[in-house]
């Protein structure tokens, strides 16, 4: 893990959607997909107090790529950043997803949960081994969908209402069922989505091959505050440094 005060190299705001692509330069790290960074712009002085955690979406000549949604106070202020602004940044944090190029893998992601899988699929040496299911609310074009290599077997489902959600849940169930004896299932998305996957993982007895990335509230991002803990079979453990990815069988609660 490294700490650096980095610079905004580029910030791309999507029209009509509260989504931002942020490119940071100055942090030279090697990351594993599913790992994340803590970001705190220098301009935040005292408020908000905490940094904010974001998955590493990718890393290339444009720098560290973060894909973020504006949901509250912190992200609202991140959206106001300009090129050249300074941000305290540390990472890569956490364990990340297991990656094995020879194995088939199923990715289930919802909303911003797509972010770490851009990196996952790009780094993967056999993208044809990946099947990716993506549930989303907004127009597909606002997500980094095109950054997922075309060799990936990818499907997007838009949810605009309750009915779509139910349909998507059914799809997820089917996907898990189909894949239960094949390989690992990697999951990232909002909590209700994780809960659903967690349920089916046990129902279809493949929970020991399902990996869920948790987005708990974090204050320190270094394992010190114990604010971000997940309830596991080994007690409460820090999601930041021991996670954010946990096997479904390790989690007692989501």
């Amino acid at each position, binding site marked *: 893990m490294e700490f650096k005060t980095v610079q905004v190299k580029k910030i791309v705001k999507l029209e009509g959607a509260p989504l931002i692509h942020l490119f940071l330069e100055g942090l030279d790290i090697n990351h594993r997909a599913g790992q994340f960074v803590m970001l705190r712009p220098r301009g935040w002085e005292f408020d908000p107090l*905490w940094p904010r955690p974001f998955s590493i979406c990718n890393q290339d000549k444009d720098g560290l790529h973060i894909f973020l949604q504006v949901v509250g106070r912190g992200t609202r202020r991140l959206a106001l950043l300009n090129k050249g602004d300074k941000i305290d940044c*540390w990472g890569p944090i956490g364990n990340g997803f297991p990656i094995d190029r020879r194995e088939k893998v199923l990715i289930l992601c919802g909303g911003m949960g797509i972010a770490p899988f851009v990196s996952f699929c790009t780094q993967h040496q056999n993208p044809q081994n990946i099947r990716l299911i993506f549930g989303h609310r907004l127009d597909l074009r606002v997500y980094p969908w095109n950054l997922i290599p075309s060799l990936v077997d990818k499907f997007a489902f838009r949810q605009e209402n309750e009915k779509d959600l139910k349909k998507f849940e059914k799809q997820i169930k089917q996907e898990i069922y189909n894949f239960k004896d094949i390989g690992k299932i990697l999951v990232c998305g909002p909590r209700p989505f994780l809960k659903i996957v967690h349920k089916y993982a046990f129902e279809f007895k493949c929970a020991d091959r399902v990996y869920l990335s948790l987005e*708990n509230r974090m204050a320190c991002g270094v394992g010190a505050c114990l604010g971000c803990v997940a309830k596991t079979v080994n007690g409460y453990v820090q999601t930041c440094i021991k996670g954010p990815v946990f096997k479904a069988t390790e989690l007692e609660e989501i």
Partner: protein
Amino acid sequence: MSVVNTEVELGPLKLKNPILTASGTFGYGLEFSQFGDLASLGGVIVKGLSLKPRQGNPMPRIVETPCGMLNAIGLQNIGIDAFLKDKLPFLPFKDTAVIVNLYAHSVQEFGELAEILSQETRVAALEVNISCPNVKQGGVQFGQEPKMAFKVVEEVRKKAGPKPVIVKLSPNVTDIKEIARAVIDAGSDIVSLINTLSGMAVDIYTKKPKLKNIFGGLSGPAIKPVALKMVYEVASKFDIPVIGVGGISKVEDVLEFLLVGALAVQIGSANFMRPGLSFELVEELPHLMNKLGIVSLKEWVGSLEV
């Protein structure tokens, strides 16, 4: 830059600089070793330790508030034995003061903890956290009742042998001086203040408290004015070394607490702003002293002109 002296003496406890890290905000110290040289700090106060490991409170345990935060971690810790075995050996205890924060539910348990640590040469001092509920008296904290505070400190002082005993005071009291008097009378060598203010946050969308525990402790820059006042009250009234805690995030804040009478400070929630913050303050302090023409901190401590 001319040479300045950042050493401070808190009775039996000598520190090479007045910057300590506050309990619960700096883990067991090791979590921060990749962001700076632990040995450069005035001291490291580790997460509150109890006799047995504790699981702490259910989630959510933390929530951000304006210029601050609430926590209800519930003293999750690995227990004193595991600390001595798995953490302490890796801390630079020869070069910096490693201070153990103690947490217990009864006077006797506090005594046992003190006894275990009394002969532990790698530990520079004990800090007694009396902001925990006193179960027998129905939820009021040890730190809110002078008589109870006295008993705890008396017991710890008795069992701690040669170790300096720091008592950490709760700000949730009508008169901080009363509690301070009690723990001083009970033999405390040093007092540190303040612990967190009681607070709460709720979510109108879920209609639930934002902390599973309902209540939590408020910390961060928001509470600095309250901490500064209490430190001033205690330091100017009693002849005991005081450590200031509460909302410190800048090197100027460090000198503010010393100006009102603290001999050292603890950096708490500000460690979350960036993990290198406490190390930065250690580096910046001599520069600010230079700028202000302070040659030695001794002359500065308590020199507020009122």
